[in-house]
């Protein structure tokens, strides 16, 4: 396992290097001069040239890229062209916010999704199954910003129970977490139901019941545990999505998270911040995928990595 993880970490570094190079090259091709945008209204060519020189944008491209890589190695991603703040600090601040939002949404999604999926599987074909699956389709289909606005109007304005926007108090976390987590809860419910139904049909479930094990014990110890692999795969991907921010939810609730940071940096062609954000997103996905792969071995003892693993 240790050698497997070490290998994956080396792969991660290579992937991140490749992504940084591709991002850097793409940004040279995409139209949009950050300096012209920064200086905006009265920008004359001489001023633009002076600022380009200050920012090092007049250096040859390979030199600019090497400067960036050198900065990353020293954990210095430079300063944002617009906010002037260090990119690392901006990313960390946004990450803290996004982590809170993602954790609560994730919690909401897995609790609601797995519970509903299990109940629907156990009551297959009954009205409860149909109702839960209808709700899950609505959850998956409804745009998250629409759910957000409905929640704001009902719980924020009409019932006056929760804040409409902001992310500065624990109570303010509730509506954005639900709005973001609903879609994921829907998809988790659907895959849990499907996976549980596959497992419930298996001989070992019948055997367990024949041996006299209680129904609840069979569902929890045998059925759910064996149904977890596809659920974890989905949950892992969704956790990655959540940790990379949700621009719409962040905009509607005025949450200064990664999603908003990424969109703003792109629309401003804020190269240091954009490179930093892309690197962060890539890192999150690579790490989450690694964690998901490792978790398989804990859920299913037949799965082994490294020496002794089936090739």
């Amino acid at each position, binding site marked *: 396992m240790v050698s497997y993880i070490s290998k994956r970490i080396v792969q991660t570094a290579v992937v991140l290097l490749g992504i940084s190079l591709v991002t850097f090259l793409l940004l040279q091709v*995409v*139209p*949009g*001069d950050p300096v*012209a*945008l920064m200086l*905006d*209204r*009265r*920008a*004359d060519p*001489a*001023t*633009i040239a002076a*600022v380009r020189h200050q920012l090092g944008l007049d250096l040859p491209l390979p030199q600019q890229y090497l400067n960036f890589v050198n900065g990353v190695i020293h954990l210095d991603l430079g300063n944002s062209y*617009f*906010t*002037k*703040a260090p990119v690392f600090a*901006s990313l960390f601040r946004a990450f803290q*916010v996004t982590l809170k939002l993602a954790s*609560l949404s994730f*919690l*909401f999604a*897995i*609790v609601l999704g*797995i*519970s509903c999926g299990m109940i629907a599987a156990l009551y297959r074909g009954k009205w409860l199954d149909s109702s839960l699956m209808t709700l899950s389709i609505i959850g998956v289909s409804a745009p998250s910003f629409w759910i957000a*606005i409905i929640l*704001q*109007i009902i*719980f*924020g*304005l009409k*019932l*006056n*129970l*929760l*804040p*409409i*926007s*902001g992310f500065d108090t*624990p*109570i303010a*976390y*509730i509506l954005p977490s639900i709005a973001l987590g609903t879609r994921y809860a829907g998809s988790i419910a659907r895959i849990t139901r499907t996976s549980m139904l596959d497992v419930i049909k298996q001989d070992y479930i019948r055997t367990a019941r024949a041996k006299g094990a209680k129904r609840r014990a069979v569902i*929890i*110890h045998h059925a*759910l*545990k064996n149904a977890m692999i596809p659920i974890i795969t989905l949950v892992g991907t969704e956790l990655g999505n959540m940790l990379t921010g949700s621009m719409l939810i962040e*905009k*509607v*609730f*005025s*949450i*200064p998270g990664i999603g*908003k940071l990424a969109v703003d940096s*792109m*629309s*401003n062609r804020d190269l240091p911040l954009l490179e930093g954000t892309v690197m962060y997103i890539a890192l999150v996905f690579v790490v989450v995928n690694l964690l998901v792969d490792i978790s398989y071995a804990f859920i299913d003892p037949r799965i082994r990595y490294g020496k002794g693993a089936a090739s």
Partner: protein
Amino acid sequence: MKKVLQGLLSAGLIVGLLAGCAGGSQPASTSSAGAASAAADGAKTIRIAAVDPQVPLDMQQCTYSIVMRITDNVAESLVTCQKDGTLAPLLLEEMPKLSDDKKTYSFTLKSGVKFHDGTTLTSSDVKYSLERLVKEQSMASLMKYVVGYDAMEDGSASELSGIKAVDDTHFTITLSQVYSPFVSVLSTPYAAIYPKAACEAAGKDWGVKTLIGTGPFKLDSYTAGTGAELSKFSDYHGGDLKIDKVSYKFIEDPNTQVLEYQKGNVDFVDLDNSLYPVYSTNATLKDQMHSYQQAGGYYFNFNVKTIKDPKVREAVSLAIDRKSICDSVLHGTASVPTSFIPSGLIGHDPDAQPFAYDPEKAKSLLAEAGYANGFDLRVTVNTKLSLGKSIATAFQQEAKAAGINVTVEPVDSAAWSDMKKNGGMECSISNWYVDYNDPDSMLYPISDSRTDTVSSFWHNDKFKQLMNDGIDTDDTAVRQKIYEQAETILTRQDYAIAPLINETKFYLLNSKVTGFEIDSTDRMNFTKADIQ
């Protein structure tokens, strides 16, 4: 697995508890508009819904109006523009005196004006601030006519030799040529006066952690993504203030801003024009809706390198049904312009007729220009300007009557700037508003004698001469004639641009707030504001 289930149930319980405790902990004071302006400590606070500027609060670095909305009440300029468009001294004892050759201005500072850090305003602070404006580059060209500007721009000098501090309260500014709008330029937020020592000491933190001025309110905090807090400056030179605090709450989404207003959590919110029909009929909100006319508007900007024939540009202008755009896209809240120079500025001709809509004449002009079978026009819009896209889409339909086939090309702000610079636009929808109350502020982007920020690439010797003549005299009657001629060349002769609409801006204001002012250059003032 039992532990897993217990974990799931525990997590569910936590979420449930959080949801359950929500109702009890929300303060009741947020339930109705108008009740929350006075905080529990008795402080009178005006709460503003604003968009997070995400940049330092320093108009010399970042020229966004959303920055100005905050900094205007913290840092002040030497003079101010009054409601009627006239200038008045703000940090000066009197308006500056002009020398006989009309190139040197003599200033006397108000004595005893304090900065928020307790230091006294001096002439060296003024010199430092205006030189900093040049060093920060964004709006450096405002000081273009000050002696020593060129040397400072090319790095051969570190100061503007034309600004001389005589003593602590007296200084002079000498220009390299007569520039009649100069005092007006000094009223802009870019010419804000900062304390030299504090600004130098703050370095990169200026506008981020520190912003000190002479304004009525001090900046207490500026938190990215959350808001900015201002509090009353007790030593304000302009007299006592009735408001204790101004609180800016950063809310990105316009709909969320209005929901927060309806809930009573903010006292001021800008209204997007697209929301006008919704709120103008709302029984509660319509009486709290106010409007103001910003000096400027939207216009078509033609790239004369690609659309070379003025007849074609005139045809496009004639193909715009501006009245229809005002009624449909802007729900009747905008007006058809009669000139590019807006009403209230020197050079605006009060007798000018609205720009005509005549698709038949447009067709015949296109035929004369060799486009009898129709003309293909690419209209580029900046996605940041949602109104621009709506106008372009409406025009796409209207233009068919004149045989013009319009393709709308939406691009983001970065690509927009790039295309402007590189001549990648054929025709674009832009908006422009004055920085200072003078036609020079409206026309300088068009004139290639000053800057080529617009994508028109248009040049006209006569127009250029008029622009120079316009700043060379302070005789209002003469300037009126000069700018009227310039306007005619620009919009009715060469058709370098085609004015589209003059929009009205709307905002919601808590009915308990009085004395609040917002002017035609979009500047907010809380000096006389109060909460009843």
